[in-house]
Each structure stands twice: as C-alpha cells, then as structure tokens.
C-alpha cells in the first residue's frame, strides 16, 4: 500500500467518524425536542384526571350533604312535632298561669 492510499484510508475514517458524531447530535436534538411535547402531554393527562377526580369528589360530597340534610330535616320535623304536642298539652295550664300573673293580687 502506498502512502497516498494510507492517507486516503485515514481521511475516510475521519469522515466516517464525523458522520457518526453528526448523527448522534441529530439524535440528541431529536430526543430533546420530543421531551417537551411528552411532558406537555403528561401534564394535560394528569391534570385532566385530577380535575375529573376533584369534580367527582365535590359531587359526592354534595350528594352526601343533601342526604344528611334530608335526614336531619326529617328528624327535626319529628322532634318539632313532639315538642309542639307536648306544648299543646300544657296550653290550658299556661293560660291559667298567665291570667294569674295579670290578675295577681288584684282579684
């Protein structure tokens, strides 16, 4: 092999090496480019899931609250009915007491 041939082989190897590095840089740039859209995609997906779960949580609380409120109102209505029934049985005695207060000592 002549000296010229040897130089040619080395020049070719250098060109090939430069190509390898160039390709690697293009691949790296591509990897970097993709990550931004990947992150954005992940963000959109995770936040959408979180918002959906949040809405479900609030709706569930609303339903629970309504059920508890209805139950409270029913129990309260029963308590009020009982209270009024007890009070009604004391009406006559109370009227007597009030009349007595007005007439007290002057009848």
């Amino acid at each position, binding site marked *: *092999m002549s000296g010229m041939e*040897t130089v040619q*082989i*080395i020049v*070719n*190897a*250098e060109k090939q*090496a430069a190509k*390898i*590095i160039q390709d*690697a*840089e293009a*691949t*790296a*740039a591509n*990897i970097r480019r*993709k*990550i931004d859209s990947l*992150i954005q995609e*992940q*963000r959109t997906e*995770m*936040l959408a*899931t*979180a*918002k959906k*779960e*949040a*809405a479900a*949580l*609030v709706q*569930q*609380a*609303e339903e*629970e*609250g*309504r059920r*508890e*409120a209805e139950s*409270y*109102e029913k129990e*309260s209505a029963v*308590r*009020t009915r009982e*209270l*009024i029934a007890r*009070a*009604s049985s*004391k*009406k006559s*005695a*109370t*009227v007597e*007491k*009030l*009349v007595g207060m*007005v*007439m007290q000592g*002057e*009848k």
Partner: protein
Amino acid sequence: MMSETSKFTEDILNAATEKAGNIIGEAEAETQRASDEAKTSISREAENIMRNARADAEAVKRREISEARHKSKLHEEKEKDIVMTEVLDHAKKRVLDVAKDESKYLPYLTTLVENAIRQLGDETLLIHLNKADMTRINRTNLERDVNKGLQKPIKIEWSKEPIEAAGGTIVSSPDGKTRIVNTLDERFDALESKLLVEAGKSLFGQ
C-alpha cells in the same frame, strides 16, 4: 504498516462512537431529569387540585347541613310562635272576659281602683270607667268598698267621659295631670314581655 493503519482508523471510529454514545447518553439523561422534574411538578399541581377539591367538598357538605339546620330551626320557631300566640291570645281573652263576670269583676275593679289611689296618694281623685261600667257599676257601693279597703275617706269624682277599654279604670288627679292607668288592656300589654317569657318556660321549658 497495513495493520497499523487499520488500528489507527479503528481508533478514530471507536473514539467517534464513544463520543456519539456520550452525546446521546447526555441528551437522554437530561431529558430523564426534565421528565422527573416535570412529573414532580405536575403531581404537586394535581395534589393541589385534589386538596382544593377536598376543601370544597367539605364546605359543600357543611353548607347543605347548615342550611338544613337553619331551615329546621326556622320551622321550629314558627311552630312555637303559633302556640305562644295562641296561648297569649287566649290568656288576653280570659283577662278581658273577667269584665263580663260581675261577681269576679267588681272585687277586681275595686282592687284596681284602690291600688291606683294608693299609688297617686291624693285624697281627691277622678275615676274614669268605660261606657258599660259607667252604666252598670253602683258607684256608691264602689266608693264605700274603696274607702273600706283604704281605711280612710277619699273624695271620689267620676269622669263623665268614658274610656276606651275592655274594663278596669284610669284614676287621675282632678286636673288630670297625674294618672294611673289600670285598665285590663293596659295591664295585659304592660306585662306582655313577661308573659311571653313565662309562656316560653311553661310550654317549652325555656
């Protein structure tokens, strides 16, 4: 010579391959870091959304129950108010009806007059009655009973103008400047707040 050239080119290519590996590895590591950081940040954001939702949910539930309590309390108060009003109206009617039963009313009226005279402390007084009492009350007997009750002679004058009341009396100095209102209506109205408290205690144990 030939094998040396080969080795040299192989070294060049090996170095290039290694560098290429480093370039790609670095990009991959960099994106992995960015991805991890982004995941942490997004998770925090998502957790924040959930935390706010939990607080909202708690508030929504509390509001529903609080509104129900308020509504029930209002209903209870309204029902109690109906009973209280009924009792108070009935009591007032009973007090005003006392005037219809002369056997009860005359001694009561005498006491009302006596008490008013004691409060005024004068020895000459003007007594006002309603129209019905002006007609039906025997004034001589009432004067006699009052003097007896007070155990001292009092000069009583009778107003010719009837008062607007269901019963009872207004006793005044002759010039009308000082007066004690002892009508049934007025006595009831004056005591109304106390009567309400008493009725509340008696009916609802308040």
